[in-house]
């Protein structure tokens, strides 16, 4: 009772300061992130949590529809999807008039309209050497002339006013981008929050600390920020009239949400409080006590929260205890792959000769993914079968790319390949030298559980295994330098394009994302070929071939893709998990 009273008092205090809003300023949405954000300069951050906040503050040219699955791009600040030239290289965007930035002292009290120049400016910031953007690669080699211009700077400051042939504002509302090569994924890149529009005046007024001064045209603006602890967003009073763009499938949850939001001006909730809670237990407890409005299901507590749903094979439902409270469960397969890579340049485990392929395949066979899913993932994952996640264009649902768990076969295979069991009961290299493999790992308790699973896999095939324990960044550094033998990795989609995953094995990406240093000529050629192809059976056939190359050579031990489980308190409306937008705050309503 006391708690509630205080809360209301806090809300009232907030409400007193604010002018008239479309959003209900008395409504507060409270959510949590499991890891700290970095900041809110879209070109400077790469982490999920920073980007999720950024996408609530800034607007990209195109955006994913909220409800449609598979994902569909729709115009966001442009009046229609861009015009693409016949050769696939020139994109023309027509920006809508009357979109305004949130107020900021940098605008000197005037309303500031969004223009094509803003996008041009924002894109140039990505490659500005002074900005050190970690995401500059997204456009630098893609847009014509950008790379050459940056290289020509030679330490000089980038001149934002200099017109570039590849990136031009034709007029106040028209932006034209010319690509070096046709690129079927470019439109996805345009939808990434790193390419959202910032206002030059604001950036220049806050050069020293752009991370803390996000000013955009999006539905929310940053009200308060305690780095690494709490982020408070407030509805942006200058936000344009915006309603739910499509009704999605028009069935089930989609229909419910469409009915809820139809015709309403978004956002609905005036204030969003995001707290960073790193431990799983308190996060869940907070949700149960309605201190959080929705939350992920802690996978460690899956058994006490949900059970397999007999009506829908493979799916789960909440235990009675929770569903009686009106809590809703949403399950969605994450757009990701998790795997353990083998370093293909490593003399012991790498190489495309049969002996080493057999070794890697045997390791994959000895690792029980099903058991991992059952015991560690608590059933909340599906085995990975394809480099391209399920549900993505290009994923062949019939392809079984994973190696089946079969320790006996793995042992027999190792015998064939010459890895004989020595007098100590462990296998030696075919040349008789001692065989001991090393797997990298971070030191957390969860990592330890995985370590134990891998340890038993190696015990099954009688190979010595040791762990190299270090902090994640140290391992990452070693990985990019090709110094690790094996390391568990995961990749989550940046955008729903197959190439976003296939590039993980693309030879030239060695030392960047291709940490296993997989170099296969045929694969690389096919990858380049598909880049300019549109979705077609031909392209799907190539994707299948690429998958088979990888299954054959086994640079990865496939693991799984997680199922994201969300629980939602009964008074929360409009929430639907989105594979790209982690925090679709503007669609959510609180009705207590």
């Amino acid at each position, binding site marked *: 009772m006391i708690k509630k009273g205080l809360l209301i008092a*806090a809300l009232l205090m907030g409400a007193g300061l604010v002018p008239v809003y479309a959003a209900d300023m008395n409504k507060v949405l409270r959510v949590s992130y499991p890891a700290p954000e970095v900041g809110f300069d879209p070109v400077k951050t*790469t982490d999920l949590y920073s980007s999720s906040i950024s996408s609530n503050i800034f607007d990209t040219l195109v955006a994913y529809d909220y409800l449609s699955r598979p994902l569909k791009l729709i115009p966001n600040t442009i009046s229609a999807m861009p015009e693409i030239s016949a050769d696939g290289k020139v994109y023309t965007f027509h920006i809508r008039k009357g979109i305004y930035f949130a107020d900021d002292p940098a605008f000197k009290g005037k309303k500031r309209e969004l223009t094509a120049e803003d996008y041009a400016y924002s894109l140039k910031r990505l490659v500005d050497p002074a900005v050190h953007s970690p*995401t500059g690669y997204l456009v630098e080699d893609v847009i014509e002339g950008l790379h050459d211009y940056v290289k020509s700077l030679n330490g000089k400051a980038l001149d934002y006013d200099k017109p570039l042939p590849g990136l031009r504002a034709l007029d106040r509302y028209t932006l034209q981008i010319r690509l070096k090569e046709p690129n079927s994924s470019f439109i996805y890149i345009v939808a990434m929050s790193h390419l959202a529009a910032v206002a030059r005046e604001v950036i220049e007024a806050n050069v020293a600390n752009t991370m803390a001064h996000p000013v955009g045209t999006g539905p929310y603006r940053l009200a308060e920020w*305690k780095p690494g602890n709490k982020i408070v967003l407030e509805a942006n009073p200058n936000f344009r009239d915006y309603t739910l763009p499509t009704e999605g499938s028009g069935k089930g949850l989609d229909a419910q949400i469409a009915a809820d939001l139809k015709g309403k001006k978004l956002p609905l909730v005036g204030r969003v409080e995001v707290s960073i809670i790193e431990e799983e237990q308190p996060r869940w407890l907070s949700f149960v006590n309605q201190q959080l409005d929705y939350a992920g299901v802690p996978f460690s507590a899956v058994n006490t929260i949900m059970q397999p749903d007999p009506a829908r094979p493979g799916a789960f439902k909440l235990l009675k205890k929770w569903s009686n409270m009106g809590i809703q469960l949403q399950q969605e397969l994450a757009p990701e792959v998790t795997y353990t890579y083998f370093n293909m340049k490593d003399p012991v485990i790498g190489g495309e000769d049969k002996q080493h392929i057999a070794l890697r395949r045997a390791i994959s066979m000895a690792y029980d993914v099903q058991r991992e899913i059952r015991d560690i993932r608590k059933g909340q994952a599906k085995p990975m079968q394809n480099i391209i996640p399920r549900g993505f264009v290009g994923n062949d649902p019939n392809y079984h790319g994973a190696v089946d768990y079969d320790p006996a076969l793995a042992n027999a295979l190792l015998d064939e390949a010459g890895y004989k069991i020595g007098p100590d009961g462990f296998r030696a290299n075919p040349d008789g030298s001692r065989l001991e493999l090393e797997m990298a790992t971070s030191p957390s308790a969860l990592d330890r559980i995985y370590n134990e699973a891998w340890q038993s896999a190696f015990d099954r095939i009688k190979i010595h295994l040791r762990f190299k324990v270090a902090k994640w*960044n140290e391992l990452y*550094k070693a990985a990019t330098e090709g110094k690790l033998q094996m390391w568990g990795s995961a990749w989550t989609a940046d955008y729903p394009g197959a190439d976003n995953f296939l590039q993980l094995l693309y030879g030239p990406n060695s030392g960047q*994302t291709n940490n296993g240093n997989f170099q296969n000529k045929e694969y690389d050629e096919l990858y380049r070929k598909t880049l300019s192809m549109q979705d077609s059976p031909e392209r799907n056939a190539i994707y299948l071939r690429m998958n088979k190359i990888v299954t054959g050579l086994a640079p990865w031990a496939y693991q799984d893709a997680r199922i994201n489980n969300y629980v939602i308190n009964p008074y929360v409306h409009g929430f639907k998990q989105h594979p790209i937008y982690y925090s679709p705050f503007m669609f959510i309503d609180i009705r207590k």
Partner: protein
Amino acid sequence: MLGYIIRRLWQMIPTLFGVMLLVFVVFNWVGGDPSYILAGKRLSPDALAAIRAQLGLDQSLPAQFWLFVKQVAHLDFGLSWSLQQPVTRILAERIGPSLTLTGTLLVVELCAALPIAVLVAYYRAKLIDRVVTIVCTVAMSVSSLVYIIVGQYVLAYQADWFPVQGWYDDSLLHSWLVFVPLPLILGLAVSLAPDVRFYRSFVVEELQQDYVRTARAKGLSERVVLFKHVLRNALIPVVTTVASSLPFLVLGSMLLERFFGIPGMGNELLAAVDKSDFPIIKAITITIAVATMVFNLLADVLYKWIDPRVELK
């Protein structure tokens, strides 16, 4: 007195230098390369080099150390590497919550532990003393982690007597009312037992002194002997112990802050070590080191104040 304080302050410089050296060596050696955290999912050598240049990691070690020395001299630790915010600002925000919890903890604990200790010492070797001593010993034997894990689970989650975790950023008082009680109770559970035992030993030690015999020979009642004569003397080690624990008020209780989501220094330090955020680690360590030295000095001055025998040299 003033001369003493000046001399002590002067003596802090080599220690501070040592601390800086230790922190620098330890974290430059083991701390890992933060540029890999900042670089994101896709690494290019150019981007890495740019980040390293921005962080000053491309300079020689002596140059980096010299920079560190200058930062300490100016009390400006630059920007946090992971949060890109001024370290001073981050720490300024963190210190309030830490102090709110640990300060309350200290006061409550002193108020509880000292009377219990005196009482038990008064009845030393009687049943109540033995019972309390044994209870304390058993209570101390359980890991603090167990108290926190079980306490949070039972008191907050199952019984719902307290919020599970959280913090109001706008009002420390509000947070203190709502969020401090549970960590406070658990903190007490962890530290009350050892402190009672500790303080009891001080009192018992004093009870064996000759002046207690004199006081009794004067015909004073046991109560006066205990609370006037003994307590005043037993307070001397208590004050020193408390004063030397003050720096950790500033640091906060890492585990409690972590579990209860209190945005304090300890939580920040754990996160910073996790992310190799060297500027934050440096700043916190230097702050704690300076606090340790200053509070030690304070302890000595206090010592002088309550114990007339002490001469400050």
